[in-house]
């Protein structure tokens, strides 16, 4: 194991070099570009045997990825924002055809107005696509979860595309010390790529992606619901297994100082890093606060969330995406999970288009001194 100073994008590229996928069809887009740029150099230097396919759009990137993954080749791609929007049609196809494609996502605000900075609106666009979405807090976790995602996607009881979601710029472009596993350990942990019906197995020809009429569409969709249920267990199992290798634990959620916490903040991504510092400060000041970080957004670990929040009095949900005409997507999810419990819940939207969230903002959020739209100039329109 060595420690290197890497950005989140570079850390993912190093994970990809060690995973050594057979095919990477990819199209550049800020802030994902450092991932494929770094990886392409590593491949050119002989670090991986990967066939990089320079496609002409993200729609083509995901189309090629689905074909490649189903043909029998381990496949990874990467994107952000508008790229994911263009890819979205095929993300649904990937999930339905059970193509275990891993996607490194640098979360970035969707246009418009056009913007290159972080929020989670791109992830929310594919919320119900059937793809797994795992959010990470920092570059180290981006590296770790790429490894986990590869195993997760390929589990016979899962077989779904997995998005590893890291905050654009905040993680993709920020350097920090990242501990890399030895290549041999990664190779041994990842293992060989195996899927039930590789298209290139010409001795056993198959028809894949068949048309389904009203008599079968519903049942075939339900297989994805079943795969997501298996993913809930698989994420915990693989997290525990990976911990044996690297000493760090990734799971469905992270509970931070929830013992005796009456006011619990719920968020995803890099904001959790800032929130942990603020929780520590407030605890030192005697405030009974805690943090619940949602790591797996899809599948949403409803039971785990309910258990983790069982003894809280108030839940404060931070959404880094808005939903014009409705409540924030994460707040809605929490409200559904806690329905009937009588728990106080308030949701806040923050950080859109890369707007910074400072520790003082979080102190005000905990104190309840802010409206639903944190940091918005001008009185908010409430739905």
């Amino acid at each position, binding site marked *: 194991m060595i420690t290197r100073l890497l950005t989140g994008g570079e850390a993912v590229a190093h994970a990809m070099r060690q995973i050594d996928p057979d095919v990477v069809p990819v199209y550049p887009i800020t802030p994902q570009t450092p991932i494929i740029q770094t990886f392409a150099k590593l491949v050119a230097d002989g670090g991986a045997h990967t066939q990089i396919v320079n496609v002409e759009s993200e729609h083509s990137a995901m189309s090629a990825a689905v074909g490649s993954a189903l043909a029998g080749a381990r496949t990874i791609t990467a994107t952000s924002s508008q790229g994911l929007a263009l890819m979205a049609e095929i993300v649904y196809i990937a999930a339905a055809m*059970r193509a275990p494609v891993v996607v490194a996502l640098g979360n970035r605000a969707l246009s418009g107005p056009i913007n290159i900075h972080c929020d989670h609106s791109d992830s929310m666009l594919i919320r119900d696509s059937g793809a797994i979405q795992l959010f990470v807090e920092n570059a180290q976790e981006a590296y770790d979860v790429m490894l986990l995602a590869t195993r997760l996607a390929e589990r016979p009881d899962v077989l779904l595309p997995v998005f590893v979601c890291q905050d654009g710029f905040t993680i993709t472009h920020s350097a920090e010390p990242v501990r890399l596993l030895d290549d041999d350990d990664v190779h041994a942990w990842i293992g060989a790529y195996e899927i039930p*019906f590789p298209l290139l197995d010409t001795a*056993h020809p*198959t*028809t894949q992606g068949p048309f389904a009429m009203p008599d*079968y569409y519903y*049942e*075939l969709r339900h*297989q994805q619901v*079943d795969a997501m249920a298996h993913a809930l267990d698989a994420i915990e199992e693989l997290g525990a297994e990976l911990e044996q290798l690297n000493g760090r634990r990734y799971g469905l959620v992270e509970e931070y100082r929830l013992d005796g916490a009456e006011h619990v903040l719920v968020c995803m991504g890099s904001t959790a890093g800032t929130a942990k510092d603020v929780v520590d400060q407030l605890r030192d000041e005697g405030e009974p606060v805690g943090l619940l970080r949602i790591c797996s957004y899809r599948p949403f670990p409803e039971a785990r969330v309910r258990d983790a929040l069982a003894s809280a009095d108030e839940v404060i949900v931070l959404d880094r995406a808005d939903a014009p005409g409705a409540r924030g997507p994460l707040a809605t999810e929490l409200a559904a999970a806690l329905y009937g419990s009588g728990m106080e819940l308030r949701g806040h939207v923050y950080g859109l288009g890369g707007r910074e969230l400072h520790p003082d903002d979080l102190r005000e959020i905990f104190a309840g001194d802010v409206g639903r739209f944190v940091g918005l100039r001008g009185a908010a329109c409430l739905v």
Partner: protein
Amino acid sequence: MSGLTLKTWQELPTAGVVTRHEELRPRTGAYRTGLRPEADLTACVDCLLCWLYCPDNAVLLDGTAFAGIDLEVCKGCEICAEVCPTGAIEMVAE
């Protein structure tokens, strides 16, 4: 299509993948519209134009010789009768 038992989601192959010899073979000829082709083998010259034009692969072959029509899949479109240069195929009432 009557007589097919619809499967549950657990019974269906993952993603609806169809493997060889497990595909359903419905009798699509069941919705033929009243006329079926009948071939006069004494008039047939094995030119195989009917085989080439048949949109449903219903023309059966024995090597390179015409060997009849599979009425399980024939829809009665009459194209074979139309293209036959010797008039060996005639449409007759079911």
